[in-house]
Structures are given as C-alpha cells and as structure tokens.
C-alpha cells in the first residue's frame, strides 16, 4: 500500500545521492501520506541520508524530493516539516523551554507566543517539571523529548524521526509510540527510523526496508512476509499427536528441521514450493494431526533478516 497521489505529503521520486564516488542512495522512490512509515536498515544503509534529503539538509544528486508538493530547499516547505535528528548535541547552556521557544521564533512566532507554545508542547511530552532546567543537566530521555518538542512545536504536516526511541526507558518508549500514532491520526505524515524493530513494528502502518542505499521492499509487515514465500522460514504446528505429525513431516522434501515439544512441533521449511499444499492435505486427513499453524518469523526482524541475508 502506498499513499494516494492526492494525499501524498512526502515523496521521493527516483532519488539518488552520491558523496563523491560513494553512493549513499540509489534510485529510491517512496511516498508517505498521513500515516506512519517505518524506515528499516542497518547502520550506513542510507536512512539518515534519506531523512536529511527530505528536510533539505542535503540535495539529491538525482531525482526529486517534495514536501506537500514543494522542494524542501524552499523555506515554505521547511515550515511544514519537523525533524528530530539522531544527534546527541543540543544547546547545552539554555533551558529546554528556551531552546524550543527560540526555534519557534524562527518560524515567525512572537517571543511571547513562542514561549507559551514551547511550554505547552514540553508539558505534553512530560517535561513540564524540568523545562526550566539547563539542557546540559538533562538525562538522555529528557534530551530526546526536547528534540521531539522542537520538531512538533510549530505544527508540521510531515515529521521525520531519526531513531526517536534512543535513550528512552520502556515507559517513555510506550509514550513515544503513542505520540507518534496520535500524530498520524491528526493528518500528519510520519517517517520514523529505528533499530528496535519490534517497537517499530507496533507503531508503523507501513515499512520501507533500505539496504546499501537501495529500497529493498515496502508495505505492511504482513505484505512483506507474503512476498517471501520462497525464503526459508519456521512454523509452529500445534497437534494432539506431535510425534506422529513430526514423523509425517519428515517425509516432506521441503522440511529442513523438526523439533518436538509437548503439544506442538517447530518446523524449519526450506522455502521450495509445494510445502503448503502438502501441509493442507495432511491437515485434511481424518487423523486430524494439525490443530493450528503459527508462523514464527512473521516479524519485522525476520523479514529484514531474510531480505538482507
């Protein structure tokens, strides 16, 4: 599923980026509407480059990036963008509220309005008690909230979050995921990257997998998994007679391994065609050997692992 043409908030059209001889991104085409799109890839895969292209910090070597139809090089487009970089440094000698208010002033707000709005956003992000302390005294989680606050305070249409979970405790991670979900509900497009794949999986509508500068796949986790029928994967089969089922499965040429537990077996499947047809036939037999089939690898981490080897 991709964002409709009318509702596209952020679009990359055949975007490539080279640093001298090094290619950071190759021919990436991706669109994001009012939804949460997760960006998955290893370190150096090109995730941050993609985000910096989206907010105009970098210029594409080829192709085009648009934010609500505008080039991010234009100030009008940057007014619609919020970016929470992975960057550790902030303005250490000012308070969280002052920092956010300063950034808001550069969006054209008056000093008083910026100050009030900064307080409001920091309060919403749970930093109300500490917003007057110097940023240099903040914990990692508090700094992350300040970074998020400066990205959200001006009411952007598109929000780019580079590793927003970094440094957050489990409660804060949960709250952050809620914030991100809430943004999409208000019509904001969110592009979020994270290494914590199971958390990303829980908060995104779609995923884009990037590897070595190329967009390998995009879609829901389930859709992506569906594209991987030909890949090796694992299943858990629940059965009243697991040993009998295991013996039957060992006769399948597509079965690479079988492990038996009290009421189920775990099967490693090579991915060669024919397995699911044979399994359906086995389940239909009057012996009733198969009660339930649960894919064990239907997670983002597994999909990612399969795709990048």
């Amino acid at each position: 599923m991709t964002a409709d043409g009318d509702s596209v908030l952020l679009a990359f059209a055949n975007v490539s980026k080279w640093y001298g001889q090094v290619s950071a991104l190759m021919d990436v085409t991706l669109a994001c509407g009012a939804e949460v799109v997760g960006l998955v890839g290893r370190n150096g895969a090109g995730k941050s480059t993609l985000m910096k292209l989206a907010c105009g910090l970098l210029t594409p070597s080829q192709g085009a990036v648009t934010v609500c139809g505008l080039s991010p090089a234009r100030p009008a487009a940057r007014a619609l963008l919020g970016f929470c970089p992975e960057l550790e440094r902030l303005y250490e000698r000012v308070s969280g509220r002052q920092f956010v208010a300063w950034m808001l002033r550069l969006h054209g707000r008056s000093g008083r309005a910026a100050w009030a709005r900064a307080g409001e956003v920091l309060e919403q992000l749970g930093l109300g008690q500490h917003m007057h302390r110097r940023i240099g005294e903040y914990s990692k989680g508090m700094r992350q909230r300040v970074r998020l606050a400066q990205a959200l305070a001006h009411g952007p249409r598109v929000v780019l979050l580079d590793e927003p979970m970094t440094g957050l405790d489990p409660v804060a991670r949960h709250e952050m995921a809620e914030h991100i979900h809430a943004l999409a509900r208000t019509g904001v497009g969110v592009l979020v990257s994270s290494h914590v794949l199971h958390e990303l999986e829980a908060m995104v509508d779609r995923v884009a997998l990037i590897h070595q500068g190329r967009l390998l796949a995009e879609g829901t986790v389930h859709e992506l998994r569906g594209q991987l029928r030909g890949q090796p994967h694992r299943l858990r089969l629940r059965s009243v007679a697991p040993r009998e089922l295991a013996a039957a499965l060992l006769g399948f040429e597509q079965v690479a391994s079988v492990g038996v537990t009290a009421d189920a077996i775990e099967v490693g499947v090579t991915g060669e065609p024919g397995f699911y047809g044979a399994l359906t036939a086995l389940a239909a037999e009057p012996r009733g050997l198969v009660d339930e089939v649960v894919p064990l690898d239907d997670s983002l981490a597994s999909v990612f692992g399969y795709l990048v080897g």
Partner: protein
Amino acid sequence: MYYLRSTFAVAQQTFLLLLRNRLLWLLLLAELACLAIGVVAGTFAPPREDGRALYVQLGYWLFCFVLAPWVSMFFAIQVVHGDIEDRTFQYLFLRPVRRSALLLGKWLAVAALCGAALALGVALLFVAITLPGSRWIGTPEWQLVPVFAGTTAAAAVAYTAIATWFAARFRRPLVWAAMFLVGLQHAIAFLPAQASLRVITVADPVRRILYRSLDLEPRLARDLWPTEREWRPELVGQPELNLLLIVVISLALGLWVYCRSEYDSRPRE
C-alpha cells in the same frame, strides 16, 4: 521584512548564547591584563612618554593590533563554526529562514559583542593610564577615547566578517585565522606606503583611520608604522572604504559558501 525579523531573532539568540559562553571569561582576563599593562605603563614609563603617547601606542598595539583580531576572530569562529562542528546547525537549517539570514544574524551578534567589549576595554585603558598620576600635558585628552573606541569596534566588525567567511568555508578555521593574522596581516600591514597590498589587511586601514582622526605628530606616527619613514597626511587614503570593502567581500564569500554547502557531507581538507 520577515527576512530582517529572522535575522534579528538569530542575532538576539546568538547574543544570549554568547553571554552564557564561559570563554567570555578569557576575554575579560585579556582585557584586565591589558588594563594592568596600562596601569604599569602609566606608573613607570619614562617621563618623555606623556599620556597621549602612551594611550595612542598602547591603544593601537594592545587593542587594535592584538586583542581585536584574536578575540573577534576567535569568537566569530566559535559562533559560526561551533554549530557546524557539533552539528547543531541542523536545528537552524530546518527552519523556514534563509541561511543568509542565519549567518548575518550570527555575525551581527558576535560583531556587536566583540565591538562593545573592545570599545569598553580601550576606554578603560584611558582610565588605567590616567589613574596613577598626571601624565598629561594639561588636562587629559578625553576626546581620544571615542576615537579609539570607534576604531577598535570597527576593527572588530571587520575581523569578525573575515572569521565568518573562514568559519563557513574551512574545516579548521582557527588555523586559517592564525595564518591570516600572523602570516599575512603581520607581514603585509607594515610594508611601506608604496606597497598597496597593505589594504587587504585590517591593521593598515585601522591605523590610517587613527592617523586621520588624531592628527599624529611624526614621532608617534612612526611608532605606529615603523617601516614608513616619511609619513605624510596624503598617505591616509580612504581607510573607511578599504575596511568596508573587506567586510562586504568577506561576508559575501561567507554567505556564498554557507548557503551552498552541505555541511554533513563536506570532504575533509
């Protein structure tokens, strides 16, 4: 109008950040050291050095020639290059403000702070020289103070403009600033008058502004320009124009680089 408003917002923010910078203590210490030299000179200098000669020499050599260039360039590089180095520039570049407004705002703030601090320092030097006892022939020449304060502030503005360009362009701007001050300025600014290359320095036009404003006697004129043996008033030329050109060209080069650079992906020198 929005451009001007954002430029002044950046200038205000940079100014407030500068006021929280611990390195300001260094500036204070440097100025105190210069004032201490003023007190010592006012107390122990030979009697032929009257208050005017002492103030002109110390004002020029300590403030216009040493403190103004080093302090102004150091702080301008801190302000412009500091956030490129630690990457906090990203927060500013994301705003709907032109990069030229960001750079001009930063330059305005650092030029104002350095100009004001140095002008105050050179004014206090007058007090430091005058305090130990009467070195003045007649009454102290207070009219020297605004001349020196204005000239030192103008020097600070020019040095910050050059440093702004270096900070936007180079990965190691402090090294370039040191090369400019020691390698270029110190070597060229003191060439005799016929070497028109002098005008690409700041020290030379600053000295010529002082010459014109103070109407210096030959001995004092030679003290400020040792290689020029036959000082004549027509050698002054147009120092304000020279200084203005340095500021405009440096800022234009700085803006050109700052507005076009992808600081995340700059190749190493």
